[in-house]
């Protein structure tokens, strides 16, 4: 096998600048859009109910993307991968946004602590009284314990992401191989802790929106979507960086091919898990479990569910199947952007039916009746707002760091990587 020495290009090794203008613009957009969304939510006069749902949806969208990026970093270390070294730093930046997201979780946690039931019904004492199920679940689903758990989740996520980024950047200076060994060794425990933490975070933040419903595979479902979204974001981020003239020769079509393969794998995995969850509930047909799906399969939501099935699974599966599709930046980039949109639709489908139905399934006399879905203007505004802050945070984390782990012991292998 030929082994050519591939030189690291200058734009990869050069530390990222202050990114002043991009930082300022994204912060501005973020703050203005969020303020606009807040004002809109106030004007609706529903006690910020819709605003909270929109905020949770956008917050969770970005949280899941960073969790997907964190998964990528942990997996890279766990498998001691060589091919992905050149793309790992960008994933580390995206994962480290979990620190920002910890703060952005406060608008969700604080109202719950003060007994506001606009988002989570169980947070309001008036909803628990008389409801036997909620009374029994109150030892877990109560505001104090919830806040404690959220603090724990974000501490775990934030500290993990920060640790991996910091040690990786430290290796840029010292070139110490021991750093890689320690991170690889830690990644086993980290992955286990990540999985458990993500599962319970999904239960607390999303599943408890309908506190009468439960699904044990819910954590895996959220993970599958997060991983797919994370890979899609990574691909988009790399393509954008290359458009700005960096990493042009470092991240080659071979790396995109592998990222495309992983994206395809998680598209399929999401479909598999989503169908598993659906099938078991459909087959058992128990009223305590089917309500959640009945809401999403009736009225206007039926169309959204169908769009999700085709948009998140069937079409990307066919689109990403062929080898040449994964090796074309245009086609792969298209599907990566598509998957980000599909992942947002997935988050929307998880959160928003709670807003229109309040968790109550009412069999309609005519199939088309039922609460209408409001046009998602407020939701998209929140998305843009949080997105601005998300981008700003990533840029600020990257300040002064190289875009590639310049002294990673496996860098040469990654630069010369060729798909067979």
């Amino acid at each position: 096998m030929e082994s050519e020495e591939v030189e690291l290009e200058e734009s990869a090794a050069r530390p990222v600048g202050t990114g002043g203008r991009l930082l300022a613009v994204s912060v501005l957009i973020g703050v203005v859009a969020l303020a606009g969304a807040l004002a809109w939510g106030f004007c609706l006069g529903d006690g910020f109910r819709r605003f909270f749902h929109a905020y949770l949806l956008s917050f969770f969208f970005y949280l899941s993307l960073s969790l997907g990026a964190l998964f990528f970093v942990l997996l890279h270390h766990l498998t001691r991968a060589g091919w992905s070294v050149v793309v790992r730093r960008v994933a580390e930046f995206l994962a480290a946004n979990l620190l920002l997201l910890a703060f952005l979780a406060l608008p969700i946690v604080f109202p719950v602590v003060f007994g506001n039931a606009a988002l989570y019904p169980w947070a309001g004492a008036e909803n628990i009284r008389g409801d036997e199920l909620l009374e029994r679940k109150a030892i877990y689903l109560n505001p104090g314990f919830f806040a404690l758990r959220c603090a724990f989740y974000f501490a775990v996520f934030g500290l993990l992401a920060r640790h991996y980024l910091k040690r990786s950047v430290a290796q840029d200076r010292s070139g110490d191989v021991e750093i890689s060994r320690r991170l690889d060794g830690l990644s086993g425990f980290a992955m286990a802790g990540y999985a458990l933490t993500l599962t319970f975070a999904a239960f607390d933040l999303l599943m408890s929106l309908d506190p009468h419903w439960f699904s044990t595979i819910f954590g895996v479902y959220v993970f599958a979507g997060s991983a797919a979204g994370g890979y899609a974001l990574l691909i988009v981020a790399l393509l954008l960086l290359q458009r700005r003239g960096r990493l042009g020769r470092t991240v080659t079509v071979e790396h995109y091919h592998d990222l495309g393969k992983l994206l395809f794998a998680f598209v399929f995995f999401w479909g598999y898990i989503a169908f598993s969850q659906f099938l078991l509930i459909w087959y058992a047909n128990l009223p305590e479990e089917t309500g959640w799906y009945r809401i999403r399969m009736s009225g206007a939501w039926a169309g959204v569910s169908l769009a999700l099935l085709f948009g998140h699974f069937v079409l990307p599966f066919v689109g990403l199947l062929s080898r040449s599709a994964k090796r074309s930046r245009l086609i792969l980039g298209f599907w990566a952007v598509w998957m980000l949109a599909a992942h947002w639709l997935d988050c929307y489908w998880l959160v928003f039916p709670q807003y229109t139905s309040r968790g109550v399934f009412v069999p309609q006399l005519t199939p088309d009746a039922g609460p209408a879905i409001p046009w998602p203007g407020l939701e998209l505004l929140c998305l843009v707002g949080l997105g601005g802050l998300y981008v700003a945070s990533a840029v600020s984390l990257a300040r002064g760091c190289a875009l590639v782990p310049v002294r990673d012991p496996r860098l040469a292998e990654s630069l010369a990587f060729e798909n067979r």
Partner: protein
Amino acid sequence: MSESNAGAPAPPPVVGLLAEFEAPEQLLDAARKVRDAGYTRWDAHTPYPLHGLEKAMGLRRTRLPWIVFAAGLAGLAGAFALQGYVHAVDYPLNMSGKPFLTLPEYLPVMFELTVLVSGITAFAGALALSRLPQYHHPFFAHPRFKRATSDRFFISLEVSDPRFERQAAEALLRAAGSASVEVVEDRGGTGKLPRWLVFATVLLAAVSLVPLMLIAQRRATPSDRPHPRLFTEMVFQPKYITQDATPFFADRRSSRPHVPGTIAQGELEADDALYRGKSGDQFVTRIPLPVTMALMRRGQERFDIYCATCHGYAGLGDGMTAKRADALQEGTWTPPTSLHTDPVRQQPVGQIFNTITYGIRKMPPYSPLIPVQDRWAIILYVRALERSQNARAEDVPPEVRPSLK
């Protein structure tokens, strides 16, 4: 080479050239040269897969992915057809009211069969497209060729190639760096399977039919012994089932008849009115249980379960069973009387009890199905139904009266 004399056997036919290389780079280089020279009937042989060799040889991309895709689609459609036919056409079973033809239920098997058929096709297809298994090929018989599986790389060029010209081909291969170029002759070996192998295969196939025939014979033969069981699990249990024998009693019956002169506890049933609807010889005219709304509701529930199928929900005799029997026109059906005709309305409740208990005309006895208390509840409800079809305006509760037309 042996001189050919008159009467001596002809020299063995030349099959092609075999060029040996010591290093993989040499082989790749030579492959490119052979490809560029326009040869088509040739092959390269390496101990391990050599990356880039297919490009160096100019091989076309294989058709196998399309074959596997088609097979996968066939598996998908086949699984759907199999389940659809079994569940929706041939033997529909009501599984808690789910539709017979239903995609979520079929998907797991469809997925599995797609994967299975694709996998088997990929394996079989790869062998078939490579024209394997091949028992014999003249190149394999060449003594130096053994090293193709250990440490040497070969190019074999067949004489049947349209561009084949021995001198030019040899020169090309030597120029490409071959350590040795040898002529390969076909020294026999027919490519036919050895006779003993064929014989053994046929014998094995015949012998393998024997167990199947034994099983078929056993299934077709009646036997007075219970069939053999491999895993007895819970088949034999330490309890008696109907008509089991037991050595405990003299008559060896495990199911015992009533002891003469005794009544089991709770079965005295002394109250004639309650248990038989009779008072002396007359049918009772009052329901012998406290008449409450709860009893009425119970009667409604039980009527709907047991009686409405023939009598209809309103007692008019238009239940599903009655309609079906009517439609079948088999000549053996007596339709149920409407409960609102005068004769029925005038029957004492005890007589209705008697009818339910023992049946009448086409109606079977319902005593095994309906306990005594429920029969009286049903009778109470029947009376309410009768009242409903022969009511006056004053019977309607005041809050509902405005909705009367």
